[in-house]
């Protein structure tokens, strides 16, 4: 209304343009729609395995947009579909990966779904043992420091992984050498079936940062802009040479652990429904609608465009070439 004091909206306060927040929403939606497609393909018998990002897209996109994928590096984990897309992979790349085709830029069909990684996208290769990527990210950050370059390295992991020795060893090393690394814990409350209360005795994973001599921050993972804000601060700190930050984004895993898991055995439907009501997809969309940046028709345009790309990607991947079986023997060593 005219005459009212024009209060700066939250994203403007953070220095994000209207186009940028729409782009963030689009990336979240792209991740969600691909993930939903994967489940359909799994249940249709096309894909043997799916491990999901649903419920964590807000945290992933909020963090990824605080970085500059042209210079920064990420050592993500297997739920980080949002991060992977934000760093430049396309639905086609993802589908080729899911179908394990020769053109899969992540592993040429060698790794199971969710094990991303491609040098040209600045994405470190992912393995299944959890937390091993944390020291890697520290080593990558060490490379930045030794070469006096300004890139930062982002490493993400679940709260379950924060109990591994590699988490401790990596954080401690980075703390000692004040390395430009962002430890990003996506606390989705479960390590497969084991709830947070049975995983850690402290209140927050972020509290552990105290022991490593750098800041630890807890943030609502469903609040995309808040995640952006704390990650941006951490990135700025790292670029200034002030060392690492541990960020704990509180999220919720909306799906079972994987397509082979049945979460009804260890949590109630009510609990899941309650979390679904707080889903970042809904919260962020509400914000954008309230800001007048999004309405149903605009949302549909975006969704249709994304769906078209995903459909095309699925079709392409379904008929794409497999790697030759004998290429199993390739790349054990350089030659």
């Amino acid at each position, binding site marked *: 209304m005219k005459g009212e004091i024009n209060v700066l909206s939250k994203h403007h306060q953070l220095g994000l343009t209207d186009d940028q927040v729409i782009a963030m929403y689009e990336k979240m939606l792209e991740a969600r729609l691909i993930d939903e497609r994967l489940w359909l393909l799994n249940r249709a018998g096309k894909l043997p395995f799916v491990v999901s990002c649903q419920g964590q897209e807000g945290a992933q996109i909020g963090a990824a947009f605080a970085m500059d994928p042209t210079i920064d*590096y990420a*050592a993500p984990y297997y739920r980080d579909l949002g991060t992977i897309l934000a760093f430049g992979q396309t639905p086609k790349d993802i589908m080729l990966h899911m179908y394990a085709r020769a053109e*899969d*830029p*992540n*592993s*040429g*069909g*060698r*790794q199971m779904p969710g*094990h991303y*990684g*491609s*040098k040209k996208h600045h994405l*470190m*290769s992912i*393995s*299944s*043992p959890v937390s*091993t990527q*944390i*020291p*890697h*990210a*520290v*080593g*990558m*950050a*060490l*490379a*930045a*420091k*030794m070469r006096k370059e300004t890139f930062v*390295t982002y490493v993400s992991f679940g709260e379950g992984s924060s109990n591994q*020795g*590699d988490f*401790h*060893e*990596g954080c*401690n*090393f980075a703390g*000692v050498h004040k390395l430009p690394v962002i430890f990003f814990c996506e606390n989705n409350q479960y390590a497969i079936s084991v709830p947070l209360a049975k995983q850690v005795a402290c209140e927050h994973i972020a509290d552990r940062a105290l022991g490593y001599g750098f800041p630890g921050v807890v943030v609502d993972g469903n609040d995309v802009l808040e995640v952006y804000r704390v990650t941006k601060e951490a990135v700025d700190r790292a670029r200034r040479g002030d060392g690492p930050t541990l960020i704990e984004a509180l999220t919720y895993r909306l799906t079972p652990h994987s397509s082979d898991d049945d979460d009804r055995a260890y949590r109630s439907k009510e609990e899941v429904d309650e979390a679904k009501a707080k889903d970042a997809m809904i919260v962020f969309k509400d914000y954008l609608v309230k800001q007048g940046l999004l309405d149903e028709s605009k949302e549909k345009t975006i969704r249709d465009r994304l769906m078209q790309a995903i459909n095309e990607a699925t079709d392409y991947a379904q008929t794409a070439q497999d790697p030759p079986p004998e290429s199993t023997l*390739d*790349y*054990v*060593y*350089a030659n």
Partner: protein
Amino acid sequence: MAVKLFIDAIRDALFHAMREDEQVFVLGEDVGVRGGVFRVTQGLIEEFGEQRVMDTPLAESGIVGVAIGAAAMGFKPVAEIQFVDFILPAVNQIISEAAKMRYRSNNDWTCPLVIRAPFGGGVHGALYHSQSLEALFYHVPGLKIVIPSTAADAKGLLLAAIRDPDPVLFFEHKGMYRLIRDEVPDGEHIVPIGKATLRKTGDDITVITYGLMVHYALEVATKLEQEGIHAHILDLRTIAPLDREAIIEAARHTGKVLIVHEDNKTGGVGAEIAAMIAEEALFDLDAPIMRLAGPDVPAMPYNAGMEKFYMLNPQKIEDAMRNLARF
């Protein structure tokens, strides 16, 4: 060319590699100011500074994991594990990550990493400062394992390892650091990984071995010459990948093969070599393939008599060589 101790030849290689290539750096526990507990890295920090000669926290998985990350970014880290006995916390990083990085990323990400570690017993090191763990890793494709037996090879193989585009485990018998000395070429000197070498020729028995045991076997062979027993001695130098061609050729040469290693017998490197010979050289065999190795107990005891019982020595090797010659 100068006669140098084994330990000095290793240090020589590090100095040379670090002067040649700024991407080469050393990290590990006590490697910096202290120059390593065995003094292998002594003097490096004075020339290259504390960033390229990095004292790390006491955390082996972290050392290797950080080195993998730096290697992924194009550095050539030389990580030191203080004793091979303490490499076990880093095994996940070595086997799940370093060994598989190239393969799992379809040749996209690589891991040009060297991990140096002293191994071997007979030095009152007891259970956790005496182990030989090469067999644990030689089963893993994607890793290379090097065990030099001379000072010249130590330098040449370490330089080859540092230049290698894949992860190399470089195991140094700690008993050899200040015991073995020989002529070491100055400056650039590369000994290719994957190539065994004949240390002596003879036509009665073939001894296949590596590391300190090469010296014991040669000592015995000289003695046995006087009895008319002529040994053919192959020094493997690289444990993974094994030099299949050289092994088969050496086995064929006499038809009588003794494999010697300090590491315990069951599932040791010798088992693979024996299988290789049995597969490819059956009709040249004139005796059972024999193995002389450490006993199958969890590790080497501290008590001097027990340690002596465990360790291989020239006498045990002589008995085994003579038995095989007599067969």
